[in-house]
C-alpha cells in the first residue's frame, strides 16, 4: 500500500474525477477529490499526497491558485483541455511542475504523475515551445532590468524537447546524460519562475502596490 503513489485530484468535473479514480490503476491511490481550488488546498494539507493533479480552470482560482499555494510542499501537475497559454504559463510560473493534456492516454497521464511525484518536471513539447516563447518575451521587456536568460545549452535543450524529442534522445543528440537533460529542464523552469516573480514585483512597483 505504501508504495502506491498518493494522488489528490482537483477538478470541477465529477466525470473526470471518477474517471481518474477508476483508471489510474494499481500504482496509484487517489487519496482525495476536490472540486475547487480552496478545497484542494485544504485537503492537500491534511492528506499529504505525493502529487496533486489540478485542473487549470476551476471555481475560486483554479490550477493557478493551487500551484501558487501548494507547490512549495507538493508537486502540482496541471491537467487541462485548455489552450489558454497565458493561464498555463502562469501556473507553471507559480510553481506547477508541468502539465498534461486531458486527452493523453492513461499510460501517459500515469507516467506524468509518477514522474512528478519523484519531483521531475513534466515537460511536453508544447510546453517547451511556450516556455521558449516566454523567455523571448521576457528578454524583450523594455524596462532594461536584467532577466534570467537561458544559456545557449538550455535553449538547445528546450528547442529539442519542443521538437518532440525525449530526454534520452536529447541527451544522445547533445552527448550528455539523460539526467543532465533533466537538470537543464529543472533549471529552465526555475528561471521561468524567477522571471515571472520579477515581473510581478515590477508590475506591482509600477503601480505603487508593494510595501
Amino acid at each position: 500500500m505504501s508504495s502506491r503513489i498518493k494522488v489528490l485530484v482537483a477538478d470541477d468535473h465529477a466525470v473526470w474525477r471518477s474517471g481518474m479514480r477508476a483508471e489510474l490503476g494499481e500504482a496509484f491511490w487517489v487519496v482525495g477529490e476536490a472540486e475547487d481550488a480552496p478545497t484542494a488546498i485544504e485537503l492537500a494539507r491534511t492528506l499529504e499526497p505525493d502529487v496533486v493533479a489540478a485542473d487549470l480552470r476551476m471555481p475560486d482560482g483554479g490550477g493557478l491558485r493551487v500551484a501558487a499555494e501548494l507547490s512549495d510542499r507538493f508537486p502540482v501537475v496541471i491537467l487541462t483541455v485548455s489552450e489558454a497559454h497565458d493561464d498555463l504559463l502562469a501556473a507553471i510560473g507559480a510553481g506547477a511542475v508541468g502539465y498534461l493534456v486531458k486527452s493523453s492516454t492513461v499510460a501517459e497521464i500515469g507516467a506524468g504523475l509518477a514522474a512528478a511525484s519523484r519531483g521531475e518536471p513534466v515537460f511536453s513539447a508544447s510546453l517547451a515551445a511556450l516556455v521558449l516563447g516566454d523567455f523571448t518575451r521576457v528578454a524583450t521587456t523594455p524596462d532594461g532590468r536584467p532577466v534570467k536568460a537561458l544559456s545557449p545549452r538550455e535553449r538547445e535543450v528546450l528547442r529539442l524537447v519542443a521538437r518532440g524529442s525525449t530526454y534520452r534522445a536529447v541527451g544522445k543528440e547533445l552527448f550528455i546524460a539523460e539526467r543532465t537533460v533533466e537538470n537543464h529542464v529543472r533549471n529552465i523552469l526555475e528561471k521561468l519562475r524567477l522571471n515571472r516573480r520579477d515581473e510581478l514585483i515590477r508590475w506591482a512597483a509600477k503601480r505603487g502596490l508593494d510595501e
Partner: protein
Amino acid sequence: MGTAPTTEAAAHDDPGSGLDAAVRAFRTAAWSWLTVVTVLSYASVERPLAAALGVLAAGTVTAAWWAPGVTGAGAAGRRWLLATELLVGATLVAGDGWVFDDGRPQSFGGVWPLAGVLARAVGAGWRAGVLAGLVLGLARAIGEAAFVRGEWAATRVLAVASTGVLFGLAGWAAGWAAERIRIAERLAARSAARAEVAAELHDGVLQTLAVVQRRSGDDDLVRLARSQEAELRHYLAGPEETPTGDVPLDVLLRSSAADAIARFGLRVEIAAVPPLPHLDRERAGAVRGGIGECLANVAKHAGTDRAVVFAEAGPQRLVVSVTDEGTGFDPSAVVERGIAGSVRRRVESVGGTTVVGSSPGTGTTVTIEIPLEAR
C-alpha cells in the same frame, strides 16, 4: 432608360443595415438640398411644373426608402426601388437643361442622383455601382444633346464626360468600401460567435471528448472524439481568412493537425513558439502542403500514431518540423521519393529548404525552413 445594370445582389449577404442607413441619410439630405435650391432659384426655372414633378418624384423615392421592409437584401421592393431611383436620377440629370434656363446655380438633380449610384454599389458591388454611374453620365450626354443649344466645344465635351467619370468613380469607391466593410463585419460576427463558444461551451465539450478518448474501448469512437476535438480547437483558434488574405500560422498548424487527425487517426501535438507570424498565400500553401505530406508519411510508414509539429519564427525565417518516434529509416539508403521529394518541391517553390533527419529505431524529423523577408 433601358440600360439598367444587370448584376444582381442575390448572392450577397445582408448588405449591412449600417451602410443602407448611411445611404438613406445621404439621400434624404441631398433631396432637402435639391428642394431648397430649386425653390430659391425659382427665377431661372423655365418649366415650373416639370421642376415640381421632378422634386416630387425624387421625394417619393426618398420617402419610400424609409418604408419598412425595403432594406432587406433580396426584398422584391428593393429591386424596384433601385431601378426607379436610377430612372428618376437619370431623368433629373437629363432634364437639367430643359427645366432650367442657362442661369441656373446648379444642375437640377444636384447631388441627389448619386444616391442611386451609392445604393447600387452598396447592394451589388462596385461593378454595379460603376454601371449606374455611367448610366447617369449617359443621361447627362443625352440631356445636353437634346436641350442645350450651342457648340460642342472641347470644354463642353469634357464637362459632360466628367459627369460620367465622377458618378462612375463614386460607384466604384462606394462598392469597394462596402465590400471591405462587409468582410470586416463578417469576420467580427464570426469572431464574436467564436468568443461565445469559447467562453460558454468549449471547456465542457473538450472535457467530454477527452473522457471519451480515454475511457472508450471502441477505437472508432476514440478516433472520432480525437478528430472532433481537433476540429473544435481549429475553430477556436480563429479564422483562416483575414482581411489581407494572410493566414495566421497557428490557425494553419491547427487545421493541418485537424486534417491529419481526421484522416489518419494520428495524435498530433502542436509545439508552437509564440509569437507566430501570418503567412502570405504562397508560403501558407507550401507549409500546409509540407506538413500534410509529413504527417501522411508518419501515418503510413513510421509505425506510430503520435507526431509533434514544431514551429518557430524569427524575423527572417520560419522553421517548421514534424517529428515522430517511430521506426525511422536510413536516409542514405532510401531513394528521394515520397517523403522528401514532394515536401521539398513545395518548400523550394517559396525559396525554402527541407532537411530529413532519421535513423532506424530513433524516428524521423523533417525540418522545413522558409525565408520570411519579402521576395
